[in-house]
């Protein structure tokens, strides 16, 4: 840990990058994931199919492959974006597939009777999704989404491979100078653990607040 403290300024800056990537990609993935789930349970076959394909694609292609494709293949197609935003977008769309699967399991906890009741009361499809299904589904899957968010934090480390200077990339650099891999990477591991712990505790707190007592 001492070695990391010697480079505290750089390490904190890189930790900031990791946290910014996590926050933006995290919010983005939850929004996209919920939309994908809504499409997946919608009555329109085309939307259902697109959502299914989306989830299968992103769950079955490794994140590193996606990052390398986005950073090195898109420029050949004429799209060249800065590295960090590129990595954030890739992380968001990737984790969205996992969020979507978690939310879909939440949708399955909403009893069919509720939908029938909604229809009987004159709700249209959109209203019953927005007011009845999604809110209950989300409340049921706070902890699984928390786990997806923890995975997202760990996955930000892969962005180091495509040139983003986040925590892993920075400690690599520190190690290059100091040559003390065990102390340095153990220190980085502790930082990631602390972030994961905070997310896990926060998810637990939110879950207790929003839990539906049946």
């Amino acid at each position, binding site marked *: 840990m001492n070695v990391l403290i010697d480079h505290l300024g750089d390490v904190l800056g890189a930790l900031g990058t990791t946290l910014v990537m996590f926050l933006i990609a995290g919010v983005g993935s939850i929004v996209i994931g919920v939309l994908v789930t809504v499409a997946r349970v919608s009555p329109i076959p085309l939307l259902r199919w697109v959502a299914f394909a989306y989830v299968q694609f992103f769950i079955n292609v490794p994140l590193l492959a996606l990052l390398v494709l986005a950073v090195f293949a898109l420029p050949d197609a004429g799209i060249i974006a800065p590295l960090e935003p590129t990595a954030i977008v890739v992380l968001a769309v990737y984790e969205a597939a996992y969020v979507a699967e978690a939310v879909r399991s939440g949708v399955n906890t909403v009893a069919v009777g509720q939908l029938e009741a909604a229809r009987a009361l004159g709700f249209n499809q959109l209203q019953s999704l927005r007011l009845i299904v999604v809110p209950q589904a989300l409340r049921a899957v706070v902890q699984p989404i928390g786990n997806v968010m923890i995975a997202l934090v760990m996955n930000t480390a892969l962005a180091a491979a495509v*040139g983003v200077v986040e925590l892993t990339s920075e400690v690599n650099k520190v190690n290059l100078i100091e040559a003390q891999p065990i102390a340095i990477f153990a220190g980085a591991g502790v930082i990631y653990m602390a972030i994961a712990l905070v997310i896990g505790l926060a998810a637990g707190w939110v879950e207790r607040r929003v839990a539906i007592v049946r």
Partner: protein
Amino acid sequence: MFTSTSNRWRAPLVAAVFTTVALAAAGCSSSGSTGVPTAASSGSSDALYKDAIVAKAADILPGSTMAAIKKRGKLIVAEALDAPLLSQQDPSNPDSVTGFDADLAKLLAIYILGKPNVEIVPPASETREALLANGTVDVVFNTYTITTQRAAQVDFAGPYFESGLAVAVKSDNTDIKSIDDLGGKTVIVGANTPAVTTVPEKQPTAKIVSFGTDPEAVLALTQGRGDAYVQDQTLLASDALTNKAMKVVGQPFTKEAYGIGLKLGDSDFKKFINNWLVKIQKNGTWGKVWKASLGTVVQSDIPTPPAIGSVPGS
């Protein structure tokens, strides 16, 4: 609700999964330990191995690291599998690993064992010190730049080679002629290379972008993600040879002395390897190895090998 749809899509899905797995497997083949048997060594260097020198029995001190290696029958070396000209695995023949570092490692194995029995453990730059400290490998041949900080963690025999960082730009770039023109520019470097720390020292206003591998960095340069790519001169020369979209400008602006990493405090082994280096430098083997590897892309005479112990930390 989805059972019928998912059946219909299972076949293409399975195909997609298989493609991904195949890709992943191809990517992984460069990791893990690879035993490199004698017979598979490549043609050009065979002559080198035939008349390579072998240590006298008296040099293998009883109870020393050399004696332990001899008893084991193979030298365990940390060296890359993906460094062209230095230590490159032949994709079509995984048993063949050639290049400057790889050939020297085999010659060292011959010196100790009488045969080029080398087991390769591919290191990451970030784990070399740990691999030596916990005894996973005997030596590190990995363009391991000797620094005083590293010398506090490991011992260095050598230096056995001296190189330097140079600047490469896109072929159509005429503004950048050397490191002095990189102020305020975006500079691509290889992650875990000396350039990561050297470029900011020379040009504090330059913005550094690091990529994991050399091909990625070259691609990033030619795609315009940076104005210049700073990397070892030899590596850049070999890149520029095969890629007309980039060129190397100016002369190297640093001196990197590469050493053979050894476990800290093993002074007998260090002395033994330094003696070997002096011998192969004197009898011309060092020059032949250089000519067969790095010499194929650099238009110059065989350089003078660095003097043993000539840099701080060695």
